[in-house]
């Protein structure tokens, strides 16, 4: 029996997003025993995740409280942590999957003393080390968020090497369903639809202004027979009261629901209108359609509801998404999304008449509206509901996503079939964007990618020379020259990345992976470095080839195909 420890010390939403990983592991290793380490605050959430055999709660407050007094707690905190880590060690895990990318979780992972580890860990000297391509990608995506096109669920599953698409799961207890039924019977009139409203969020930047929520609810009420259930934590009760004051028919349940009851109630709802929150992921899990108002630092591509046909509305504004630690004073992104837009979308969703595409009219000019979906490989994706002219960023991000999928999954010969890939990408782009009529050349500037290729190939050459037996270990001068050369190449790569953000995800992936190289033997280190340069070269070259193929051939073909289809339609009409 394989004993697996998943470390996920995070908030409610992240825990729910790890449920497909648990399910995937159970599918892959049917007799495995899964332990999940989590922050004690969210014990109810973990208890509801199917497939978790052992729950290991880590109470941050228990550990920290001795250290909060004016001294005197060091020994106490040490002993408490020692007992926790000793217990982890004694459970003899066969594998640790650490999907919490903090230094803190790396230290815990190292103290489990397990041989098979994926995710962040410490090496024997205490330096941070990340095991696994996708775990490194996760770190990369945190640093280069605007280029990330993978949902957290898919990243988790790929870190744990389980199949996609993943399946979110939460077990609702019968008692919770009964309680939920009682509440609904009490408040809901028979013919009314139920809409869950989540006005709070983890940061004020992410929380759409409560007045705008209230106006939205009023708009929806005008044309729909609905009852609103307002959910939130106890600290968000004030928001619930404000909404309740404007919409007397609404039911303020802020601070009044356990996790189980909340899940059961959301399960009963016909729609949820929410900021990027934990309850949003509950809705996605129980299959309640979600209208996600994505603001502040919430990056829809990363954390929008997992599943099909959920809708995301996000502002079209330069500063969105902001940095998670950004404290914003203007919150202009909130004003880009109007109550009318949200109520329109909500009504469409309630009436199940969401079209395949929306016209790019005045109403939605300040927002992107995206629908959740899965691609042919089972990877979750966001599709634009409003077709807009194709931009260089769209082409680049689509190509980048394909490149990571193939390369990091270790697909053999992945970079050889560039024409096929280019066609596939172009085909997808045609579905989602308006193809330009003019010449497609110069749509994407490939200069920085070419510079990256040059640097990577120089690195490959020098590292290979260093690794070769021709360099005698005593030839200090040559070793120093080559070592210095490789150091300078890394510096040039970093400089290039800061000047050209589009290559930064590639350089970051290279740097993070390089940080994990271990060993003392020069030729082995040099040969590992050479392989990394080769990878970097392949990434950049693949992107150049694909993008070239896209605008030199594939996209033109698509444009022709599109025109043919239009004409065919006209003829048939």
């Amino acid at each position, binding site marked *: 029996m394989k004993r697996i420890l998943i470390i996920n010390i995070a908030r409610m939403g992240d825990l729910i997003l790890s449920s497909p990983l648990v399910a995937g592991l159970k599918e892959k290793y049917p007799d495995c025993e899964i332990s999940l380490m989590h922050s004690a605050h969210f014990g109810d959430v973990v208890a509801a995740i199917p497939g978790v055999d052992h729950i290991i709660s880590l109470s941050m407050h228990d550990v920290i409280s001795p250290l*909060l*007094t*004016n*001294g005197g707690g060091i020994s106490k905190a*040490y*002993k408490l942590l020692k007992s926790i880590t000793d217990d982890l060690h004694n459970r003899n895990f066969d594998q640790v999957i650490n999907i919490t990318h903090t230094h803190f979780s790396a230290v815990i992972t190292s*103290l489990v003393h397990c041989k098979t580890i994926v995710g962040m860990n410490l090496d024997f*000297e*205490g330096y941070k080390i990340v095991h696994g391509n996708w775990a490194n990608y996760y770190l990369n995506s945190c640093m280069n968020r605007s280029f990330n096109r993978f949902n957290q669920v898919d990243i988790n599953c790929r870190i744990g090497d389980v199949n996609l698409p993943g399946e979110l799961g939460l077990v609702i207890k019968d008692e919770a369903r009964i309680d939920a039924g009682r509440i609904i019977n009490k408040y809901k009139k028979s013919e009314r639809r139920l809409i869950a409203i989540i006005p709070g969020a983890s940061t004020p930047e992410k929380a759409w202004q409560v007045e705008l929520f209230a106006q939205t609810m009023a708009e929806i009420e005008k044309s729909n027979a609905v009852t609103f259930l307002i959910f939130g934590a106890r600290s968000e009760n004030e928001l619930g009261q404000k909404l309740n004051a404007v919409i007397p028919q609404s039911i303020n349940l802020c601070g009044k629901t356990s996790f189980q009851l909340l899940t059961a109630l959301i399960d009963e709802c016909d729609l949820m209108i929410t900021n990027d929150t934990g309850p949003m992921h509950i809705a996605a899990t129980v299959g309640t359609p979600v209208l996600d108002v994505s603001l502040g630092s919430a990056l829809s591509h990363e954390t929008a509801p997992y599943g099909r046909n959920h809708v995301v509305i996000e502002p079209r504004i330069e500063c969105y998404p902001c940095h998670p630690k950004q404290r914003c004073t203007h919150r202009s992104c909130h004003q880009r999304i109007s109550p009318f837009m949200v109520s329109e979308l909500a009504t469409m969703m309630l009436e199940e008449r969401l079209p395949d595409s929306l016209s790019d009219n005045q109403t939605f000019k300040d927002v992107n509206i995206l629908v959740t979906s899965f691609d042919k490989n089972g990877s979750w994706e966001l599709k634009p509901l409003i077709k807009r002219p194709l931009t260089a960023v769209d082409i680049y991000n689509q190509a980048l996503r394909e490149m990571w999928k193939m390369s990091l999954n270790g697909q053999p010969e992945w970079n050889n079939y560039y024409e096929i890939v280019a066609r596939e990408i172009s085909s997808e782009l045609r579905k989602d964007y308006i193809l330009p009529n003019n010449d497609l050349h110069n749509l994407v500037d490939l200069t920085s990618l070419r510079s990256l290729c040059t640097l990577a190939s120089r690195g490959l050459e020098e590292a290979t020379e260093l690794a070769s037996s021709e360099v005698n270990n005593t030839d200090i001068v040559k070793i120093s020259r080559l070592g210095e050369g490789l150091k300078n190449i890394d510096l040039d790569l970093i400089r290039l990345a800061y000047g050209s953000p589009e290559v930064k995800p590639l350089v970051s992936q290279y740097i993070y992976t390089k940080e994990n190289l271990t060993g003392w033997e020069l030729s082995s280190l040099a040969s590992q470095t050479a392989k990394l340069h080769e990878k970097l070269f392949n990434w950049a070259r693949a992107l150049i080839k694909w993008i070239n193929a896209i605008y030199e051939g594939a996209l033109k073909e698509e444009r022709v195909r599109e025109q043919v289809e239009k004409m065919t339609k006209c003829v048939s009409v």
Partner: protein
Amino acid sequence: MNRINVQNPWLSRSFPDLFMKIRDITPNLTLEVNPTRSGHPTLKADGIQVHSSYDPLREAESIAEKALSGINENDVLVICGLGLGYLAEVIRQRFHGKLVVVEPDLGMIHKALSTRSLSFIPQATAAFGLSPEDTTKVIQSALENSNDWKRVRLIKHQPSIKLNAGFYDELNRIINGRRNQCVEGLGILVVTPIYGGSLPVAHYCASAFERLGHRVELLDNEIYNNARLQIESISSNRNHRNQLTGLLTTLMAESITAKALDRAVDLVFLTAQSPMSPNVIRELRGQGIPAAFWFVEDWQYFTYWRDWAPLYDYFFTIQKDGFNDALARIGVKKSHYLPLAADTQVHKPLTLTENEKAEFGSTISHLGAGYHNRQEVFSGLTDLDFKLWGNDWDELKSLGQILQREGARLTTEESVKVFNATDININLHSSPFHNGVNPEGDYVNPRTFEIAACEGFQLVDERSLLPEMFKIGSEITTFKHESEVRELINHYRANPDERRRIATAARRRVLAEHTYEIRMAEVLEFIYSYETTPASRRHPDHIDNLLEEAEDDPELTGLLSHYKGKGVVTVEDIADDIRKREGELTDPEAIFLLMYEFRNWAKEKELV
């Protein structure tokens, strides 16, 4: 008064000096020897019964029994008070380690020698008729050059102590100071002024404390210099400026409390002009943290000491005599003379490049501000190969021709180069009131020590406190009057070997006696002769307390034992060391890294 006459061949042979002193002494005390029933004579001094009037020997045995419990042979026992020698005799019979018998009163010694046969004395060390300082030296030699004053155990003969209370109080204080010198790893907050001459001194003190093995926290107020200058230009209204300056001073002073408490320091140390407020001193005292101030200024010229010296717990001066009296008059008891010194890590001999020699070198130089007396004296030397360095010189006068860099201030590194590159450094102590040498000058300026530490040769004006620090003639050359300077220059210009010999001797003396480490050790010795336990020792995270708590965990004890003597230890300190250390990470170390991460998390959540 009895005139005593003693003929004691053993005493005259073993202690010729003492013998000469007591041979014809007139005792201070009225000493009366009486017989007892036990047959052992007893003594009454000034009406105080020094020994039992029934059985002095039995009484001594009883005292000795109590006093010797918990003593081991490695200790140095100091018997405070001879009386007729009963206690010392009994202890000598029972204790075979180092024994020092102290008796300051010559009359008492005389009486004891003439009454009883003190046969044990050759087997003990006698500190008879000495001052408290000299008595300490005797104890030090009994320690055989060890500095472990915690081994020194005092056995107090109470009637003797009563008779010489002043002597024993002082002896006790000095011994306490020495013992507390063994207090390792004090946390010391050094507060600097915003600007001025005592700013580098504060930094030198901080470095010295650090080199003595203490944990130093620096509150460097130089960062507020721009704010100070800004205030000067904000308003032409003096009241407004004063108000703003007051606010700035309050900010800096309150920062002292904040940092002292946050870093759990044992002592706050300030040099002249450093910002402080009476409230802060009170708050610190309330927390058991003494505040010490080193007044490195001329007390007659800068008089703010009158307001501040009574507030500080400890006050150090670079002048004595008149100043000590003046301080005593305003009720300052814990003041101590502490001359300036040199930081020999900064001021040291250098090998200069040819370019540096050309730039900074000359036959004669002076480095310092253009005080009136210097302007007067140096005006007569401009015909020589003379370079004048420093600010506040009148460029338009004749000195303009020898003034370097248009009177810009030199950095410390450049000053060191000047001292090294100059054949003859002229060091004239500043005075705004004299035309040349200040005949009343007492304190010795920092430059004296700094030039000497650089092994530079200097001609310095006579200062009354200088001969205590350097042997005039062989270690330093002085001039009494400005009129002697030219002749001395001529002499030493012609005698480079003599210059070199004196400079080498001066540096040797600095290294032996005038470094900031020595001064700061003296500061701590003085302070901890009064203070009992350093504040941080009471802190729960003091390493001794942590080790006590970790007794049942050998791994934790092993990790923490590296911090023995480091005072208060924080999770951050330990994590920091672990990260810097090379080699395999152990589990206890990883747990500390984890704890550090928890602390960070708590900080992010604003819980700490």
